[in-house]
């Protein structure tokens, strides 16, 4: 089955992960800009990072037949540094024009501080000015519900097109408010700290598949790109059909990401030769 991994931090992963993903049906990944594990001090560090994910990483993925797309942003954890954030934001339009860059992300909140909120607003404004998609990170663990609500409040004041905004790392306590407000919601599958493959299938069964994305967000921490395939297996083992699975794990990423014409992979439909 063809799968799209819509949130994947490829630079933190090995070539073997690409190879195994290709063998398990992954045809494309999208890589948002991410926190490096420490706070970067220089705008130039971001610029080099953006070059890596917009120019080099697509060549590495291509060796395994996987299309690689990217997003650019200052991560919420680094938004406390206003000078750095503003300087990086001023240079982001150059990268938004790259042939595989899909939009602004992942921006969002970590501890929902004033500076983080200002950075989120500035990122969304930049995206709106350049007619870009937006990928928004929501806080982990105990801050999730509060941070998600603050995010929704910020967006409500900004006259964004909800169809162009994906709010990620949703779980049971936040999914409804995101969908009710008209945004796309993402479920990130982690071994311990975020949603699990089984709980994601519960959410899909409860809310349906419209405007829902599933991803592994695999990075340099305890994470696993194949939680996405675990989710596909769980979904299918509960009796859901192949086309239903394709709608969620391939076609929904096509529908959201395809709002940017650079993402040219189209939704697919399974049929027999007689049809």
């Amino acid at each position, binding site marked *: 089955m063809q799968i799209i991994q819509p949130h994947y931090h490829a630079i933190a992963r090995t070539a073997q992960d690409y190879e195994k993903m290709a063998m398990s049906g992954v045809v494309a990944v999208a890589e948002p800009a991410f926190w490096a594990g420490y706070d970067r001090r220089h705008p130039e560090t971001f610029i080099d990072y953006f070059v890596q994910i917009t120019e080099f990483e697509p060549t590495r993925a291509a060796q395994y037949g996987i299309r690689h797309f990217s997003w650019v942003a200052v991560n919420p954890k680094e938004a406390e540094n206003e000078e750095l954030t503003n300087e990086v934001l001023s240079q982001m339009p150059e990268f938004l024009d790259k042939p595989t860059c899909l939009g602004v992300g992942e921006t969002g909140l970590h501890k929902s501080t004033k500076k983080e909120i200002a950075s989120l607003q500035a990122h969304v404004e930049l995206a709106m000015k350049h007619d870009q998609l937006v990928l928004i990170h929501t806080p982990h*663990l105990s801050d999730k519900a509060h941070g998600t609500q603050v995010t929704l409040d910020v967006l409500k004041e900004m006259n964004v097109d909800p169809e162009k905004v994906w709010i990620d790392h949703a779980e049971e306590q936040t999914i409804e408010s995101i969908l009710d407000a008209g945004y796309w919601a993402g479920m990130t599958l982690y*071994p*311990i*700290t975020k949603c*699990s493959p*089984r*709980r994601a299938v*519960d959410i899909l*069964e*409860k809310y349906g598949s419209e405007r829902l994305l599933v991803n592994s967000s695999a990075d340099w921490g305890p994470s696993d790109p194949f939680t996405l395939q675990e989710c596909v297996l769980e979904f299918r083992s509960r009796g859901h059909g192949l086309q239903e699975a394709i709608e969620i794990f391939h076609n929904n990423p096509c529908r959201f990401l395809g709002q940017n014409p650079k993402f040219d992979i189209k939704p697919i439909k399974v049929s027999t030769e007689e049809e």
Partner: protein
Amino acid sequence: MQTPKQILDTYYLETRCMLLETAAVLDRYDRAAESQGQAESEAKREVLLKALNELANSDRREDRAKTLLELFTEIPT
């Protein structure tokens, strides 16, 4: 031996995850039972709830795992 703080710091997130999975199984059962009717026997559900109750209310020290294993013998597997 780890200190009490080390134990909480090391195992909190993993235990949180296991409890969430447990809650999700019970929610899943309730949704299915609501649309399809409950299982012929709810013994497995009942023993899981008994186990959770045991964990929440027991003031025993150290033998919670043993108590749960004894509870689970009610279900032939």
